[in-house]
């Protein structure tokens, strides 16, 4: 695949210096700020009102990420009629990091809604927090990437991801690993360039930029077209905020979004257990040794022996 050596990284990095320099300024301040993601991180605003379902983004991702050939050509629109045998629409898989699905919406003048999705690159990624080999990294550019060389294959991240994103290369007996969108980190984002799917889209459905600017842009679009857009940027706050955010002209729950997902990052649901760990570690030894001494004292008295040991 596209392994980049250090030299070409530096070269290509020149183009991205501006972004990197911009982010470097706030690096120190962000170190202490663990919530809400890196302040200057990048993101993508996806506007479904513009998507025409051409699947160019899928093709671009396939090429950029060196994924295996698809089952059907990327210009084959019959995939939109596919119903997997469990009644679900297509989802991300080990062969496709991004998927466009079609949703028929009643009384929508422009016809069906096409929804592109991929990893949302959460500010506080559930996948990252659940990984026991620390394979995942949230980079300062905003991407959630992972190191397949340490993936053990426990698949907890797949359990944890609230968006059902990570896939697993079950088909490989020797080196099965997690597979998901990495926001083109290695080949593009790191150098300050937009992801391949963003660049490939003829309709500019996706706007690449700093996450905080995208929120402004999203709000401005809603504000200038209040009759068109649903007044919500999906991903601005969901599960602690995501780098990829969405605008739509139909309610999000009608196009496959989970609207009950809440604004708490997933880790906050887990913290309740994590807080008891140190308590058990410190209190239990004293408590149970105490019980032991008490119990044996009784026994010792009963047996009128100096020690409780048998």
């Amino acid at each position: 695949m596209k392994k980049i050596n250090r030299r070409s990284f530096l070269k290509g990095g020149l183009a991205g210096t501006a972004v990197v320099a911009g982010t470097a300024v706030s690096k120190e301040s962000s170190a202490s700020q663990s919530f809400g993601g890196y302040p200057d991180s990048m993101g993508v605003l996806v506007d479904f009102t513009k998507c025409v379902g051409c699947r160019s983004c899928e093709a671009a991702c396939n090429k950029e990420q060196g994924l295996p050939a698809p089952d059907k050509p990327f210009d084959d629109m019959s995939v939109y009629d596919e119903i997997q045998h469990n009644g679900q629409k297509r989802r991300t898989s080990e062969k496709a990091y991004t998927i466009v699905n079609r949703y028929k919406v009643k009384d929508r003048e422009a016809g069906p809604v096409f929804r592109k999705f991929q990893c949302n690159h959460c500010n506080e990624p559930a996948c990252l927090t659940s990984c026991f080999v620390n394979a995942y990294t949230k980079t300062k550019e905003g991407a959630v990437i992972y190191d397949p060389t340490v993936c053990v294959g426990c698949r907890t991240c797949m359990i944890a991801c609230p968006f059902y994103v990570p896939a697993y290369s079950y088909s490989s007996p020797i080196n099965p690993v997690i597979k998901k969108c990495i926001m083109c980190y290695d080949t593009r984002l790191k150098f300050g360039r937009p992801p391949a799917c963003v660049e490939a889209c003829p309709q500019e459905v996706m706007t690449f930029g700093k996450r905080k600017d995208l929120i402004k842009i999203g709000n401005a679009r809603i504000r200038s077209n209040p009759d068109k857009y649903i007044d919500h940027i999906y991903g601005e706050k969901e599960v602690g905020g995501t780098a990829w955010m969405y605008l739509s002209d139909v309610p999000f729950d009608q196009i496959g979004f989970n609207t009950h997902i809440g604004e708490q990052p997933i880790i906050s649901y887990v913290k309740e257990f994590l807080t008891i760990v140190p308590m058990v570690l410190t209190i239990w030894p004293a408590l149970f040794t105490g019980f032991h001494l008490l119990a044996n004292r009784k026994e010792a008295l009963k047996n009128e022996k100096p020690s409780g040991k048998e």
Partner: protein
Amino acid sequence: MTQVRKKIILLLITLALAGWPAAHCLAESGPESATLDRLANLYEAVNFNHSAHVDITEGNCAECHHHTTGAVPTNPKCLKCHPGGQESDSMACQDCHSAKRFEVAYLTEIESNTQLYHIDKPGLKGAYHQKCMGCHQTTGGPTGCQDCHVRNEKGDEFFHAGNFSPAPVAHNGGH
């Protein structure tokens, strides 16, 4: 890899250089046609018939060129800054809609220039397609990719189509 990625973006950068340099609101002063061939990596060049589109809009340049030809905007919001229209030095799409919409320089500019109102202008490729498709969808114009762009072999490879179609496979696991 990089090459192909570039192809995708450059696809319609070509359009910018090649066509649509509308000079004045006078419809007849626009070009007869323009050849859009920057996407040669994936598609054959497109021969855009400008004068036919002038006919379709009945000479209303603002339909596509906004206020740049001096026409009075119909959108009241635009009117606030461009009252009575405001002719621009250039009305070529590329001069406002950047082909490098997502490059660092552009992103830095919209972030640091607090005077800038238009921070959400589509890039060149997006501007073309949104404009074309927006109209084609409502007026019954062609909307399929290949209705306008004839794909070449590189394009077939990119889309895994044509001679590069995958062999039909049985469903291979993974719900």
